[in-house]
């Protein structure tokens, strides 16, 4: 089993998951509550990674982060080394790739929160930001957990984007799925088998957790 790859993958997934949650909360809130008529365009952009082949996404990210792009040049100015084929590039690509998996569960649980509760909060003198923290978020805990778990798990399982943006540098960008691919290419089936089995069990556990969370702790329907 490739422990370096496993640890690197967990590190990547944790960082991506944390950044994604901070990013996805405001996006999901806006998607759930905005009445802007062109909102569906933003929804489509957020959902793009669901349908795009990972190689396409990876290709565009690679171009956007390359040494000739504005982002790539800025990065070289700041850090002295190029962004492509680094761990940081992997984090950026993974955030884009897993964005819909964080935004969509959040947006759908926000949208389920009874609007009269928000009106009630307003008439009690509480502004929208605090209403979000005190009413919307607590009533959306299953959605928040589902978003966190799904974006973590989706990052763990990515392959195409990682290969395009990060390549295969042990300890830097070689994640679990790439390690398995590498093992198979090198006819090292025993190691591939072990890592694959670990990933399978992990994925099952994640899904079991998500499905158990979909049951809401407070039955809103019970309140007439």
């Amino acid at each position, binding site marked *: 089993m490739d422990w370096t790859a496993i640890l690197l993958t967990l590190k990547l997934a944790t960082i991506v998951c944390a950044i994604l949650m901070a990013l996805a909360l405001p996006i999901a809130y806006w998607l759930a509550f905005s009445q802007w008529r062109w909102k569906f365009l933003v929804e489509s952009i957020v959902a793009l990674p669901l349908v795009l082949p990972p190689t396409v996404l990876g290709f565009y990210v690679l171009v956007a982060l390359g040494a000739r792009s504005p982002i790539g040049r800025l990065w070289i100015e700041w850090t002295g080394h190029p962004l492509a084929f680094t761990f940081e590039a992997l984090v950026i690509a993974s955030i884009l790739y897993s964005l819909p998996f964080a935004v969509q569960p959040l947006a759908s649980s926000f949208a389920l929160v*009874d609007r*009269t*509760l928000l*009106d*009630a*909060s*307003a*008439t*009690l*003198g*509480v*502004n*929208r930001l*605090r209403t979000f923290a*005190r*009413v919307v978020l*607590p*009533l959306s805990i299953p959605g928040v957990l589902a978003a966190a778990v799904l974006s973590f798990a989706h990052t763990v399982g990515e392959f195409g984007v990682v290969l395009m943006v990060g390549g295969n540098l042990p300890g830097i960008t070689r994640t679990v799925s790439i390690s398995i691919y590498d093992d198979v290419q090198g006819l090292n089936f025993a190691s591939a088998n072990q890592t694959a089995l670990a990933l399978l069990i992990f994925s099952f556990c994640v899904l079991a957790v998500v499905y158990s969370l979909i049951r809401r702790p*407070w*039955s*809103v329907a*019970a*309140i*007439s």
Partner: protein
Amino acid sequence: MTLAVRLRKRLTPHFAVDLEFTASAGVTILFGASGSGKTTVLRCVAGLLRADEGRVAIGDLVVFDAAAAIDVPASKRGFGFVFQDLALFPHLTAQENIAYGLSALPPHERNTRVAKIASAFRLESVMLRRPAEISGGQRQRVGLARSLVTDPRVLLLDEPLAALDHDTQSRIIEDLRAWNAARRIPILYVTHSQREVFALGDRVIALHEGTVTADGAPEAVMNAPATDAMASLAGFENVFDAVVHQRLESAGVMRSRIDGTAVDLELPLGFAREGTIIRVAIRAGDILIATEPPRGLSARNVMPGRIVALVTERAQVKLTVDVGIEMHVQITPTARDTLGLRVGETVWVILKTHSCRVVSAR
């Protein structure tokens, strides 16, 4: 402190709320059928819905003025609102729900105020339970307490007692009255229940299709319904058309004929001219029944008819008598038994002139 409201809000191409009223301290009832615009008025006053035109002010404080581009957000108006479905926060206990609007206060003061209102609304025993774990009446009290504990400038209530039984309604109404006796703020109370109008109101504003059709003391408004919808809401079971054929100004009455029949009816003198069709409303409980032609009677309207239906509901007997039109009459079971009333029998329907209300002239 007086609440002054002038609003115009178009909801659909065919329906707009367009009205003006003031409400001083005490309970003002907004009474009307569903779809009359009551809730829209309340939401505009609260700032949850933006009116197209108008002005809302409490004393000197203007919270909305379309012309001056003033629109204070709901969270800054200090107007309490109790929702029809209460909108209690399901994840918070009764105590946390009540304390919700007090987060700006120091904990000590917050606790004191919550404890005080919990005792006024008899909620001490359920403070640690969530809304799903308490009864409907208790939830109602939590909803009221949650709004009142913030010391609102105005209290807006949207059919808050609709789902409760009469006893519980009465007790909550008493608690609300007692609470407001000390504070004297304007309370706007939306309802379509005539019972609540009489139990609560110092004053009733009747709404119909987005406009004010009557405004005054509960007795005055409810006994002189201005429209069909109001008549049926105010408990007038008989509503029918009649043609005025003679005005007797000196006697203060007018003679009319029930439309499509040969039945004459004497009505209190109204503005209707001879020949116009008017709408008449009569309460089923205001009609008397006799089994023989009555004599020496002060009532001016006596009509023979045949009983076509006789239904007993709880302690009331509802008769339908065909006098040319079907007239609904309400009597007691004792009266039914004493008179030996049966379907098919001929009876005399007796109506005082002033039991007949003219709802509208066409």
